[in-house]
């Protein structure tokens, strides 16, 4: 038994020996291309610049007033700002991903490559999320500054970062979805912002809605799952599941939309 598995493992090794022989790796290739593109794209630099500038200003202002009023330090303020900014940043980062491929005709190239449609979508999404993760890594400078001048609650900061990271994944997936809908980047961007605003305001709109809709509106609120849990140091599985579900759902629909291009 053990001998057999050993042998089969060995033969597998042998067949896989030549580098990347006959094993197209579309997901990885697309991920690399998209992540690389962010480092040559003015919009991506603008997003990074705006994110770091705005969160930096908020951070220093907040810090100054807390010192002034002797208030306890709060490492989550920048992240609260960040998730709000995601309404605009996520569509900015994702609007071109599929819209441009469609417009330039390069989608025809991708769709005739030996790559699954889902891998194309997933590769693009992961490229965008990886880029945003890099921005968030740079933002780790804030808790370090905070820790050097006071003793903030590190637990809350960690959960808030995890929450904001999940939030950004969901926001980017939604942005990508609208990039698949149209071949016009600007339209994709606007639709993405609109969708984010609706999801953001869902909780605020809930009290005005018919009673039977209220719980639903509260549940789909993209902000509620962050500010009332992760930002308070709580990791609730429901909230994790919410963001994961948003990502998976948006990516699934995006894949379906890309597939549907074949039928037109």
């Amino acid at each position: 038994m053990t001998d057999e598995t050993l042998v089969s493992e060995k033969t597998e090794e042998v067949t896989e020996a030549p580098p990347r022989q006959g094993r197209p790796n579309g997901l990885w290739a697309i991920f690399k291309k998209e992540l690389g593109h962010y480092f040559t794209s003015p919009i991506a630099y603008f997003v990074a610049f705006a994110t770091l500038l705005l969160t930096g200003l908020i951070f220093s202002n907040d810090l100054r007033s807390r010192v002034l009023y002797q208030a306890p330090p709060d490492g989550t303020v920048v992240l609260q700002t960040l998730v709000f900014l995601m309404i605009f940043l996520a569509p900015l980062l994702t609007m071109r991903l599929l819209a441009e491929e469609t417009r330039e005709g390069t989608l025809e190239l991708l769709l005739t490559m030996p790559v699954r449609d889902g891998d194309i979508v997933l590769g693009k999404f992961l490229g965008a999320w990886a880029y945003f993760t890099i921005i968030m890594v740079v933002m780790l400078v804030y808790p370090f500054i905070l820790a050097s001048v006071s003793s903030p609650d590190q637990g809350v900061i960690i959960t808030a970062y995890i929450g904001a990271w999940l939030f950004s994944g969901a926001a980017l997936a939604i942005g990508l979805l609208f990039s698949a809908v149209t071949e016009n980047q600007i339209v994709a961007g606007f639709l993405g912002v609109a969708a984010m605003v609706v999801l953001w305001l869902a909780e605020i709109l809930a009290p005005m809605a018919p009673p039977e809709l209220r719980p639903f509106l509260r549940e789909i609120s993209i902000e509620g799952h962050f500010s009332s849990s992760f930002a308070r140091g709580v990791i609730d599985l429901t909230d994790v599941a919410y963001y994961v579900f948003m990502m998976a759902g948006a990516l699934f629909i995006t894949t379906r939309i890309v597939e549907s291009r074949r039928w037109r």
Partner: protein
Amino acid sequence: MIEVQDLTKYYGNFAALKGISFTVEKGEVVGFLGPNGAGKTTTMRILTAYMPPSAGKVTVAGYDVVDGSMEVRRVIGYMPETVPLYPDMSVFGYLDFVAELRGVPDRWDRIEDVLDRVGMLERADSLIRNLSKGMRQRVGLAQAIIHDPEVLILDEPTIGLDPRQVLEVRQLVRELGRDHTIIFSTHILSEAEQVCDRVLIIDHGQIVAEGTPQNLRDRLQKGGRLFVRVGRADGDVEALLRKVPTVREVTSAETGFIISADDNVGVRPAIARAVVEAGWDLLELRPLAMTLEDIFLELTASDEDTAEPEPEEE
């Protein structure tokens, strides 16, 4: 290598392909000839597994384009009509991306080979946005052959190029034809004549004629036309020519007469004799070679106005 049976494709209610069938043998260079909107691009998109047929069976290298879509995509190299390039990438970066998508082993060596083959080696580091149309076309070709595919499908590879670039691309296609099976579409008839072993003429989603360029010409030339030029005539030449047996029609052209006859070979001595017997000089007597252009017009002229536009590139 490629087998197509009763291939039908509908866009909504519009039938872009109305049940076409053909086969392509290994190593053949086959030209799709047809006006815009004939169904050439649609056929190619189905062959490359870009979109599924509405009905019919299509296999490439033994794989069905629907059930074996991934395998089909692996054996095919495809250059769409609008060359799919990323303007922000360098030539090398672009080919590296495609090669990785296709899982080409020893990518960098292969890219160098391919660039050398299309004559773009010295532009490897240029951004694609800075390339001329002809160079982009060559990068598109390089992309299509990067994985040394068994089947190469080129959609109007010479469209929009200047005459020299056209010649270069044709030369390249002929070279590639030595070790690849190629399907290649065009609406330029002389191009199909020069490059292809066999031509399929497609119109309104149907194959209206098929054969070698020579073959097609012969077939449609039966009872072809002759040009006759007579010098120093003191009578009615046209009337005389009409009297020659089997001559169907005589029209006067600029310097002579064009004759349609049932048998354009057998009638020649009779014409020569008739002219000489009348005491005139026969200056010229030659068959008018029918170009594919003529053949094409003859085959497709029937209902030009109803031609539907080909679906635009998205």
